[in-house]
């Protein structure tokens, strides 16, 4: 075949694909960003409500109905920071809480450091077996003073989910929060995230708290003393992603009563409900997402009245990936978890008994979170190709870019306005310019890269490749910010 013949063939193919898909793709881009905008409007309304609440707030110091909280901390090879983290968790401002650390068969000095810092002694107790566990528990330890509310459980290595399930069994308070050893909690974070439970004690089953990237901020003794912007662009862009997706997407969904995702680094659950549905699923990659779905399904199947809420106050801070390599692994894993969980709960789609979860939240996630990278990829390939082949002219290509990415920047900036109004965490003016720059830069390479990585994760799941956890890797969140 001659070169011209090849080009002509390609041309027809591209023309044909574009004919078929061009309008739907642009419509898709507009839809996805409009839906995000709708969520933002909803979140705006929610923030006005929150702002009203805040300026008329009556101080609640957590007396009375504040339910006790068990902080569950799965730890694998965290010798560097575990003691500091546990100390800071123990001194959170809350009337009644305990810390349960599960050493997931660490090969380093994690346990030794804890043992020394808290003068741990072994307790000959057996662990309750409310949530089934596969791995062997090696020992349970408490501080010698008999008063510090810390429990350390050692077990054979078998992954984060099992570690959390062991912690659930060892926990003694009615609420459980799953946190990572490198998370930093706001001193008043527990007060914020338990408030919905105190206000509606018979129906609330889970609440989620906002997370912010801690990169760049000044941390002393496990507390953030000064909030600063991350120093490099990759984490800065993630700051923007989190702002947009967590703060606004979550708050918007919460308002619609369809909150289905609770971020992996800070979710607070009623312990008895978690036990009832069987704890975290060790075989699932999207652990926390999967848990929330399981709770929704079970409670709706049984026709029980319940409530899940999102608290927009930043409750927890965590380090986000700084290098492309770590980021890639994270995004692969998230998308893979998203796919596997959505597929596992496909029976909930469009069924009336699942209410808004079934006809609104789940379809949205299928269309705009799961399939999004596929369609974006198509757009990324087809348009330059069409441009090269002269099928479209430069103005079209630019229009496409403007619509697709300009709109995304618009949505992000809306998120920034609302955040500035409600939380204004960053002091310096410089932070504003950097955030704006990050929201623009996001669309020049970063977004395209995450598209590819998400597809990689999805593809490896479809191929049945087992996810390489190795031993427990550092976890981030099991939610994919859009």
């Amino acid at each position, binding site marked *: 075949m001659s070169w011209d013949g090849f080009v002509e063939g390609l041309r027809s193919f591209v023309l044909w694909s574009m004919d078929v898909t061009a309008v739907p793709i642009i419509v898709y881009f507009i839809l996805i960003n409009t839906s995000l905008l709708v969520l933002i409007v909803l979140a705006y309304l929610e923030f006005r409500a929150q702002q*009203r609440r805040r300026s008329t707030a009556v101080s*609640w110091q957590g007396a009375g109905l504040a339910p006790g909280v068990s902080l569950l901390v799965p730890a694998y090879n965290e010798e560097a920071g575990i003691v500091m983290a546990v100390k800071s968790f123990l001194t959170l401002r809350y009337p009644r809480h305990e810390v349960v650390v599960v050493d997931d068969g660490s090969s380093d000095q994690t346990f030794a450091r804890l043992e020394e810092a808290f003068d741990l*002694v072994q307790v000959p107790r*057996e662990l309750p077996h409310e949530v089934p566990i596969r791995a062997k528990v090696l020992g349970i330890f408490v501080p010698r003073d008999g*008063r510090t509310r810390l429990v350390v459980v050692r077990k054979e290595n078998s992954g984060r989910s099992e570690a959390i399930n062991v912690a659930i069994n060892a926990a003694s308070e009615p609420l459980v929060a799953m946190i990572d050893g490198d998370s930093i909690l706001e001193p008043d974070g527990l007060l914020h995230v338990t408030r919905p439970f*105190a206000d509606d*004690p018979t129906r609330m089953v889970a609440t989620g708290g906002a997370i912010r990237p801690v990169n760049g901020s000044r941390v002393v003794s496990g507390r953030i003393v000064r909030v600063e912007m991350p120093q490099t662009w990759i984490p800065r862009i993630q700051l923007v992603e989190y702002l947009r997706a967590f703060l606004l997407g979550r708050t918007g969904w919460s308002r619609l009563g369809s909150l289905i995702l609770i971020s992996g680094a800070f979710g607070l659950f009623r312990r008895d409900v978690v036990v009832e549905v069987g704890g975290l699923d060790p075989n699932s990659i999207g652990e926390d997402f999967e848990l929330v779905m399981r709770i929704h399904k079970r409670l709706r199947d049984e026709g029980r009245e319940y409530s899940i809420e999102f608290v927009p106050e930043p409750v927890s801070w965590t380090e986000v990936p700084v290098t492309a390599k770590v980021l890639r692994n994270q995004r692969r894993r998230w998308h893979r978890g998203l796919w596997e969980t959505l597929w596992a709960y496909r029976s909930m789609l469009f069924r009336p008994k699942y209410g808004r979860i079934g006809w609104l939240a789940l379809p949205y996630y299928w269309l705009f979170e799961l399939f999004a990278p596929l369609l974006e990829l198509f757009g990324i390939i087809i348009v330059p190709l069409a441009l090269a082949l002269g099928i479209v002219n430069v103005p079209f290509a630019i*229009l496409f870019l403007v619509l697709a990415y300009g709109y995304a920047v618009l949505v992000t900036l809306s998120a*920034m306005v609302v955040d500035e109004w409600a939380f204004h965490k960053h002091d310096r003016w410089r932070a504003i310019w950097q955030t*704006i720059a990050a929201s623009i830069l996001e669309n020049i390479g970063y977004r395209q890269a995450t598209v590819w990585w998400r597809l990689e994760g999805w593809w490896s799941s479809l191929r049945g490749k087992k996810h390489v956890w190795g031993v427990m890797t550092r976890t981030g969140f099991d939610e994919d910010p859009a």
Partner: protein
Amino acid sequence: MIIGAALLVGATVVILGACVLLILAVVAVRARRHSRTQRDEMLLSPLRPPLITVASGEDDDGAAAEQLTWATGVSRTVLDRNIVEMLTKIRGVPAEQLVHVLEVHGAVDAAVVEMSSRSTVKRARAAQLLGLARAGHTVPLLVEALGDEAVEVRNSAAYALGLIGDPAAAGPVLAAIGAPERGLPAATAAEALQSMGVGISEVLRDGMADPNARTRMVAAHLSGERSFTRGLPELRALLDADPDLTVRETSATAIGRLGRSEDVGILVRHTVPSEPLALRRACVIALDDLGEAEAIPALAVLLDDSDPRLAELAATALLSMGPDGRDALAGHENDPAVRSARLLAGLQKASA
């Protein structure tokens, strides 16, 4: 697909324009916040020294307080707002002096009027002011506000009623928890009721029969907290038969706090294996709290339970019931539950 430059330029202008507007909005929001704070500080600065003098209780001759009463216009508004803030931080004679300043300013009367304002923030703040000023004559107004359409106002009204402490408001506060659509959050209700004196025990008894589960739970919880033994019959009924598990657990805890030896039976009854595990554990803890020796045989039986925590809780309870309790551990010496309970009891004693 060849499109005209006009369409492109049009779309680009719209989107770029919107972006610029939003950037300006971010900047404006921040700038406005800064200037507002600065303006307030400036207005307040000549009045701050006398305010601090009064608030710290150093205004023996009343000269500083009088100075505060002379404030007018916007300064007065800002000052009043600061006084209200200050009243959440101090109490005693200085607080009374500040309330007097508010009254002279007519702020209390103005707050009564503001309770009918269209603005939610104004109504809520007005309610809070009335509470902080201990304006007892406004209790009926605040009770009405418990049914306001805005939850912030409902919360503020309950808060104010708690501060004023009039037990006549207890019934309405409790009832407001279960109001359909406009419920009062349980936590605020509980805090308000906490400061309303002994007269509310009958109200709590009624509350335990309320159709709404949240109300029953708050009533049960507070009966326990405030040691209202008159509520025991209702608490027992809730533990036996309430459809909501949280209410039952709360009742068990309350019975543990204020029950007597005749309540051992009912708590023991709910430690049987057919009951939910969470309730069984709560009842054992309550038996420990109760501390009555009648419970010893039942606790001894629980030492063999398949749930290790339940067994350990039973062992802990037995250890605190004197020689008879410790005797009941005979034969279970090597059980992990008993050894753990012993170890922990020992550790606590050692560090006391």
